[in-house]
């Protein structure tokens, strides 16, 4: 099957690991564990981020158990880290706690916008890659930085559409498309997704996947929004494979006007 086939043949492969779903879900902010479990099931996602700082991995009956039961792999993140040193330390703690060398690397440079600190991000990524981590960095929508992260050995890049939790969608679609062109590794749009059309647009711009956290968790009906995101990611992916028509300034009739019946 070709691009966008929803039957799983069109897998997203990161660091050699194929995933049927191209949607990554964040686990923070859900109203209850039950809603989280139901939303995960509805999303079809196989990978979900967890902030090490927010949970005790050893606590039973909690988040990690829900993920395990849902068959969703856990992707620890370094949320709340402001320096490379902090992030590297947190990543190592996460590796120990969750028994995975995958890490979603976040190094935040500003408390109001939660934008990434590019310089610290590169430092941390370099050190973690050298240490054997599969690094998925949360980055600005900067194609040059994305290429640097690829050069360092990151497994994917996760550029932002707009600030975390803002729900502002993709503010610079042009840059996201440039990031896609700049690197050969998977591009997963992270941050800013507010509703399903944002996710579909990300896929249409050529992203390989979409990460959605607040948009699902804080929706009025998170389970319905998780379904919407799953379908939107599939739709966007299918549309890319289908090959859209070029944009035109003037109309072009979909029905030829030859052979119209003539009425008295």
């Amino acid at each position, binding site marked *: 099957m070709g691009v966008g086939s929803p039957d799983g043949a069109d897998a997203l492969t990161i660091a050699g690991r194929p995933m049927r779903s191209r949607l990554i879900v964040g686990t923070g902010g859900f109203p209850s564990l039950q*809603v989280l479990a139901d939303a995960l099931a509805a999303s079809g996602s196989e990978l979900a981020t967890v902030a090490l700082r927010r949970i005790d991995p050893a606590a039973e009956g909690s988040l990690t158990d829900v993920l395990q039961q849902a068959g969703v792999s856990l992707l620890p993140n370094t949320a709340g880290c402001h320096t490379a040193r902090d992030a590297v330390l947190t990543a190592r703690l996460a590796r120990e706690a969750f028994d995975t060398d995958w890490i979603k690397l976040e190094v935040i440079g500003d408390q109001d916008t939660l934008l990434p600190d590019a310089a610290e991000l590169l430092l941390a990524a370099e050190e973690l890659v050298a240490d054997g981590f599969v690094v998925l960095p949360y980055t600005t929508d900067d194609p040059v930085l994305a290429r640097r992260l690829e050069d360092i050995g990151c497994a994917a890049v996760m550029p932002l559409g707009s600030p975390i939790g803002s729900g502002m969608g993709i503010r610079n679609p042009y840059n996201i498309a440039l990031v896609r062109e700049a690197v050969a590794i998977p591009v997963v749009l992270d941050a800013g997704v507010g509703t399903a059309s944002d996710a579909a647009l990300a896929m249409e711009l050529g992203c390989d996947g979409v990460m959605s956290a607040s948009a699902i968790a804080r929706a009025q009906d998170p389970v319905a929004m998780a379904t919407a995101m799953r379908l939107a990611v599939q739709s966007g992916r299918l549309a890319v494979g289908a090959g859209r028509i070029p944009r035109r300034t003037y109309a072009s009739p979909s029905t030829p006007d030859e052979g119209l019946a003539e009425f008295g």
Partner: protein
Amino acid sequence: MATESHSERPTDVLVVGGGIIGLAVAWRARQRGLSVCLIERHAIGAGASRVAAGMLAPVSEVEFDQARRKTLALALSSADMWPSFAAELAELAGVDVGLRRAGTLMVARDADEARELERQLAFRQSLDVAVSRLLPSQAREREPALAPNVRLALLADGDHSVDPVLAVHALLVACRRSGVEVVEHAGDVAVAVDAEGGRVEGVRLADGSLRAAGQVVVAMGAWSALLDGLPESLRVPVRPVKGQILRLRDPAGPGLLNGAVRGAGVYIVPRNDGRYVVGASMEERGFDLAATAGVVHELLRHARDLVPGISEFQLEEVCVGLRPGTPDNAPLIGASELQGLVWACGHYRNGILLSPLTAALTAGVLTGDPGDPLLALCDPARFHGPDADAGLALERQLTGSRG
């Protein structure tokens, strides 16, 4: 009628857990003529009851998911019961539980918060609950201590508060005066099940002796899943959700705030004596009771942004408690599949609010009343069995792994 001493006859009801839920259940069961003994591992009210802020706030606390599950009815119903509950306690125990009927303000301080508050207002209006929209000037007229940069406020006029420490004390006095036998510092106890495994015989005390009872009520809060003596299949999916709060005191006495105030990341609840509770964190950290610098900082920062005047307050205490969380945030109240075993736990953020209702419902279960329709919302078996959907069934696994 049973007496306070150990009688030959088994006690009708043993309540395990001396927090606000256990005490309220014991009191109400005793009022219905049952002989009741309450057993507490440590001290009465030393768990989450002592840490709770005591908000009776069904309207300001309602969440989207609660509306879908219809569990708002539990909170509204219990909030309605509180004034007479408090009056009854005042009369019987001679203790004022500090019920403050001054409403609750929900405050937005910037455009982002205001948009979220508008969404919350629309949601509450769709539920037809009592909430009104206040202009900044109206909000500050009501609570002059609010920061000047208020953008928008919602008033939940019927959301009140009590002082849980006083409520626990009142209930303890009421229990004793009405003839409930109260055993404190009992250590770890276990449920005793008969040889066939068909019904509860009572409770096995820490010294190994059996305290016989017709029915056993489990009101152990966050520890309810750890109760020994039960088959794995009967365990309930209750987990601890850590909360940190601060206790502040205004040396100038009461009056800075009239009612509770909620803003982004914080609430402030005034007591009658010039004390204030600032809360609360929500942390999934297992049975961890450590106070942390980060949470104290965040609570104080948010609280001071909301009500600058608290800077002058004395910081009396940092308290940490464990809310009994359930997968859907609703409590477990009612008979179990094991005859004689009754659950009254899993009240999550709402133990104080839901105590009058829980006591009434549980007393009804204990005396064989026809089922109250509200009990269906709290069915302890909802996470078990063939009726549970896939998501719910996972909880069986979760609690199974907890042994």
